């Protein structure tokens, strides 16, 4: 029995990438401290819940690390199709929360299919390019674009601008790493810019337009949509270089920061830990991405290379979009800060992503042995 346990532990340890693991633990530690500060005054036991969330997420991460990349590759198509079906299900039978249909009510839990897509999308596209023999041609890229657009548009229609952009970005990253020619990338970018007015008038919802408008001039609506940005800017700015100290942020504790333990947690961290805390956090994320890209470069197969690179950049993109929106340089799109924000769903998704990175890293090493 003991022997069995020890073997299990050593198996798990064998598929653990120490640098990634340490980075994730550090981030989660920062997250716990900040969530505590953001919620303790409200007297709600958010900390226990978040610890549970993190333990679950770590379990998923370690579990994902055990799955060999080949198996992951085989899961890509079913996983993607499952996500797609659920998304269509949401569009038809979804539960409406806060004016948008994002959740599918199953008997036991409510699940958010767009969350599945965050991982399923890069998996699917990496699998697709892996199977283009001998090299992807233009038509393959066209098919890839279809694979990317279908779920992205479904999510956009929910409506969930932030997630659709991130899912779209995850897919695009794979296509980019797969070698889509610059001509097409630049061409697509220009046509996207050209299409912006159309998207603006026909695709975006009123509240999404307002959010983007208030990004450029938060003061125009200080009590409405601009309030979030103004208050978080005040929190960050008043934090200064060294911050006001843990548990001492006035913007945080007097409830001026909205969503302070979830999407706007970076404002809490910046208020209490200042520029120093904010830049250290940024360094942690850069290190995480750096490690991920190293794994990608060293990965043996096209599938694992593409997947690892896309997941790594996705992690960075999430962090960047969140910090950018909280500090007022990007529109408020509702993206949590990876490993820091309170909440289980995104945490589990991202941990699985890190687990996949670990799997790619460790199975390559094992394979060489």
């Amino acid at each position, binding site marked *: 029995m003991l022997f069995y346990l020890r073997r299990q532990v050593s198996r798990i340890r064998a598929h653990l990438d120490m640098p990634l693991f340490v980075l994730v633990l550090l981030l989660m530690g920062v997250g716990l401290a900040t969530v505590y500060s953001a919620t303790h005054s409200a007297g709600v036991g958010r900390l226990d819940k978040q610890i549970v969330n993190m333990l679950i997420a770590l379990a998923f991460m370690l579990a994902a690390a055990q799955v060999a990349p080949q198996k992951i590759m085989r899961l890509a198509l079913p996983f993607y199709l499952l996500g797609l079906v659920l998304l269509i299900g949401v569009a038809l039978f979804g539960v409406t929360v806060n004016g948008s249909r994002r959740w599918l009510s199953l008997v036991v839990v409510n699940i958010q299919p767009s969350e599945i897509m965050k991982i399923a999308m890069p998996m699917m596209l990496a699998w697709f390019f892996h199977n283009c023999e*001998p090299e992807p041609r233009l038509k393959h890229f066209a098919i890839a674009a279809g694979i990317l657009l279908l779920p992205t548009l479904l999510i956009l229609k929910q409506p969930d601008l932030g997630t659709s952009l991130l899912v779209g970005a995850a897919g695009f990253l794979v296509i980019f790493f797969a070698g889509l020619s610059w001509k097409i990338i630049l061409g697509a970018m220009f046509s996207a810019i050209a299409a912006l007015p159309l998207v603006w008038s026909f695709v975006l919802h009123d509240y999404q337009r307002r959010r983007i408008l208030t990004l450029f001039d938060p003061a125009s609506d200080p009590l409405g949509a601009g309030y979030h940005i103004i208050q978080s800017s005040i929190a960050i*700015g*008043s934090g200064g270089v060294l911050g006001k100290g843990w548990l001492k942020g006035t913007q945080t504790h007097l409830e001026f920061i909205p969503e302070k333990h979830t999407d706007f947690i970076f404002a809490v961290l910046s208020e209490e830990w200042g520029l120093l805390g904010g830049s250290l956090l940024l360094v942690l*994320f850069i290190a995480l991405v750096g490690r991920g*890209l190293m794994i990608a470069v060293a990965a043996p197969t096209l599938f694992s290379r593409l997947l690892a690179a896309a997941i790594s950049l996705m992690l960075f993109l999430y962090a960047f979009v969140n910090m950018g929106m909280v500090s007022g340089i990007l529109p408020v799109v509702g993206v949590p800060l990876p490993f820091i924000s309170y909440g289980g769903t995104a945490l589990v998704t991202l941990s699985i992503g890190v687990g996949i990175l670990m799997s790619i890293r460790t199975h390559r090493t094992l394979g060489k042995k």
Partner: protein
Amino acid sequence: MNRNMNAFQYGQQELAQFRRRVLFAAIGVFLLSGALLANLVHLQVFLHEYYSTRAESNRISLSPIVPNRGNITDRNGVVLARNYSAFTLEITPDQTRDLEATIDALSELIDIQAKDRRRFKRLLEEAKTFESIPIRTRLTDEEVARFTARRYLFPGVDVKARLFRQYPEGALAAHAIGYISRINDNDLAWIEQEADKYPERNISYKGTSLIGKIGLEKQYEFELHGVTGHEQIEVDAAGRAVRMLSHTAPIPGNNLVLTLDAALQRTAEAAFGQRRGALVALDPNNGAVLALVSTPAFDPNLFVDGIRFDDWDELNANPDKPMLNRAIYSAYPPGSTFKPLMALAALSQGRRKTSHTISDPGFFSFGGRIFMDDKIGGHGSVDMLKSIIVSCNTYYYHLANDLGIDAIARFMGEVGLGARTGIDIPGESEGVLPSPEWKARRFKSREQQKWYAGETISVGIGQGYNAYTPLQMAHALANVLNHGRVFTPHLVDAVTESGTGAARRVSAQPARQISLDPDHVDFIKRAMAGVNKEGTGARAFAGAPYTSGGKTGTAQVYSLKGQRYAGQSKERLRDHSWFVAFAPLEEPRIVVAALVENGGFGSQSAAPIARQVFDHYLLGKNSDGPAPEADALPPAISPAGAQHAVLP
């Protein structure tokens, strides 16, 4: 093999490209991180101070505590202005989502009428949105309870205990006391100017909504207001107070103790009855104002809450002009009340001896024009004493002609006519002391600027361009009786601090000295005593148990340019009735100047009013009713009326 080679070559190529793309992505990561970091540096280093201030002002709500306004009491402690506490329902527009809907919902609970809404709307336009603005004042206890129970339904709405100004005596002495009302832009400029002038006085009107507009309330505004206190409260985003950081108590405004005698004032006002006019009673020994009447008056309580439009219209449209302070602003020709001063001028300048006698034929002819006396056939042989007692015009026609306008103007200016007395309420007018210089200033055309010798002659009997306020007439007489010691008339006796009770007395030092010969002054007193004993004041003062002196006057009603009031009823064309008087004779304690508009002869309506005031002040006799009109003395011709028709 070939295919394998191709695959291998492709593999190598693909790998190289992948690495280039990863490198590109890594550069992208660094660039984006750099942008993020640059923005954080911008916010946390360069804008740190700005955002710190904003965080502080977010956190700390500085709420002013309005000090209690000082009370105003008369010399005997009768309260003329005070504060009382009442509950108001107030809305802070900033914290309210939909004002209209909120007010509608509130009106279900509390009686809110259309006029309340109108006033709220008006105040809203003037106020800042973060100030709380009253929608209803003077809530009943039941209304307070009803609202408090449902307060949670109304964010930004609150019941506040506010102090209201109250004038318990209503219209009594309204022109002297004045009123407070909503602060407007002019007031704000005034406050700012005052605050700049006296930085050490800590003038702050944060939270104060009312300010003195006229009278003592305006003059002593910065004594009465007090020093605003403040509370620093830490608030959360919902505006709820978390804890108090600091508290600076307000310093209540100082109280005013007046020289005014409310009972005397009431007697004087009552003596006027429905008649328009003014009365000023001074203590000649120190310039204290004992009564200051201007009738009709107004109820200052109407203004405190923001006067209603119909009340305001009524006050403004009233032909009797209740808002006009006749005692200090309206200037009337002094008529014969001018004669004692003319006599004194002649004595002082050595141009007449009291024994100088003329023979009065009933007219004075000058430059081909005839100036009439008021008695046909004249008063016969008239010396200076008789000239005052019988009010002989002819005597003063001669005298004015002999003195000349420059000497007259110099002396009258000296005793205090034609200049503001400096009384401690705003709105005093200068009156008109006619002289060639005045005329040159007053008129534009050469023709009009020229002074005619004939004009000097009508000035001599107090007609012509002469025009003085009742206050000036009382002041001038007081200055004479005082042997030339000039005291500035003042309504406030002392300013007392609310907390300590320490009193600052208004200085009773003479402002200046006019050189007068005591013998001349005594002569004037004797002559005026004669008026009340056997002259034009005799009927009004018949049976008075004290000695007194007086002089009647009758001011003709027409404007400076000689035009009659257009469209007025006949009553309004009657002459104004003047009476100036003092008592007792030996040591005068009170000087009165009374004017009744369109009251006819001075002896007829103004003198009995002065009698009632004296009776009250010297005997403690209360007669709270209009003074009876004395029988008109029988002169057949309206005084000087005829001669003016022949003036240029």
